[in-house]
């Protein structure tokens, strides 16, 4: 009982703050998605019920955006975790210059996304004018329109996002790995278990909670990625890189159809919640 009260005392402040600040906006979001709020046609305002959601069904742009989002999110999260984990393991093994490696590894994420997007677009990826083009030509690999070709553009923005955010996975997993008690390995080594087996059967299960959290948090970031893609392609070419988040932004803030944009945002929320719920269950499955 005493522990319960102690626990509550520790937990409540954050909980109350979150309830206070997120409930109203959530209600507003859901309410506005059930309304017709189109600033460009104010004479049409009124309740719409589930009309906005029904419209989603026939909106090809929405489905395409959804597909892009799934590809984008899935790819970048997997890449981030794999590369991040790999980097973390690597850094732990290399004793010399560890600090430099650690600092170097977090540099991409320290660069403001908006600047990163601009840099990549104009200084690095532009064919005939950017550095990457110069390098690929010099290496005899030819020239590619990294951001101007619809397929390549998706690859490029995935690369940019992965490049920017893998440092997060790297640092988090590094801290996780570093906190593991060393005596576990003694026991394993005595059992003549090889390095891969040690990794699979001892390390991995122990850092699984950390990996799952990283996956969930990275997924949330990927789903709400905005600044870098916007600066690099604006959602283009055409709508080749317009993930759901960008589509919701365009609807609400550019087309000013706030009701419909809220509906798309609500769908995005639903998707995020479902995947997170599923992953969350994985966390506990011991």
């Amino acid at each position: 009982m005493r522990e319960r009260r102690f626990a509550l005392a520790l937990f409540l402040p954050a909980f109350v703050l979150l309830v206070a600040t997120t409930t109203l906006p959530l209600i507003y979001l859901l309410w506005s998605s059930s309304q017709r709020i189109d600033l460009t046609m104010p004479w049409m305002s009124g309740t719409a019920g589930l009309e906005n959601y029904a419209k989603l069904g026939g909106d090809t742009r929405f489905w395409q955006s959804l597909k892009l989002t799934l590809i984008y999110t899935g790819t970048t999260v997997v890449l981030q975790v794999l590369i991040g984990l790999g980097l973390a393991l690597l850094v732990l093994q290399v004793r010399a210059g560890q600090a430099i490696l650690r600092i170097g590894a977090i540099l991409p994420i320290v660069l403001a996304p908006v600047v990163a997007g601009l840099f990549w677009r104009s200084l690095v990826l532009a064919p005939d004018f950017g550095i990457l083009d110069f390098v690929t030509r010099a290496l005899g690999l030819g020239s590619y329109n990294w951001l101007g070709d619809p397929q390549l553009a998706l690859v490029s923005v995935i690369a940019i996002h992965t490049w920017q955010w893998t440092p997060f996975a790297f640092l988090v997993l590094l801290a996780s790995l570093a906190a593991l008690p060393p005596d576990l390995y003694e026991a394993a080594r005595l059992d003549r278990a090889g390095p891969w087996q040690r990794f699979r059967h001892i390390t991995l299960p122990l850092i699984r909670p950390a990996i799952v959290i990283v996956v969930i948090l990275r997924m949330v970031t990927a789903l709400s990625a905005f600044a870098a893609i916007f600066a690099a392609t604006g959602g283009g070419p055409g709508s080749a890189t317009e993930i759901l988040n960008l589509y919701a932004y365009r609807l609400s803030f550019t087309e000013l159809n706030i009701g419909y944009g809220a509906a798309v945002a609500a769908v995005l929320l639903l998707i995020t919640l479902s995947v997170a719920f599923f992953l969350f269950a994985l966390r506990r499955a011991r």
Partner: protein
Amino acid sequence: MRTAVLLAIAIVMLVVWIFPVAWGLLTSFKTERDVLAYPPEVIFEPTLVNYHDVFFGGASIVPNLISSLIISGLTTALTMLFAIPAAYALARLDLPWKRATGFWVLATQMLPPVGLVIPYFLLLRKVGWTDTYQGLVLVYLTFALPFAIWLLVSYFEEIPREMEEAALLDRAGRLRALWHVILPQAKGGIAVTVIFVFLNSWNEFLFAVVLGGNTVRPVTVAMFNFISLEQTQWGRLAAAAMVGMAPVIALGLLAQQHIVKGLTVGAVKGGGRR
């Protein structure tokens, strides 16, 4: 031999990794002409004019650096203050309806920022808190708290139970147990959380633009002074970006020492033997 190979891989990865940032650094010392030169120049005559403008020019970002420091500093401090106890309770204590509330906390992180801009704007307007530090920090807290709580939860869960049980046996010293025993164990995790909470609020743009104004104007917004409608002043933009990165890197340098505190000489985790 193995070390040498690993080191080589590490160096190659590092070079590719930091290349864009390194290129940004180079750009910040170039004149506009050199920036646009093709083939891209690696050797050029460096100039300090960009940094001069960024610090002392008409569009100096020094006030904005201070603004950013206030915003991110407050956000980070408040977040850690609320999140550490909450995370500990979630991770290790007997909290009623733990799984449900835990998931709910995580769920608040899922609210898409795009859908929240308008309601937050309207709410802050109502209370008269637009373009104020308290308003923006409050909004940032709603993103930072769930993030920090859940990061910390995974670190608290790694702490061996025996250590805690021993500390908690002394009923009078529960808080002291937390402070003196548990926290130092999770130092690495706390350091990582601090870095990212600070970083996320430092680099945030959308809410800062909409909810801020003349008073609350962080570096991310001020950088647009160099991306005017007529032209992009690449040199100055790069210099501003570098200056904008400096505080976070400084923080990172400070905090990262704590991340691998558990590494003993010669020990190796999860991989092979040297």
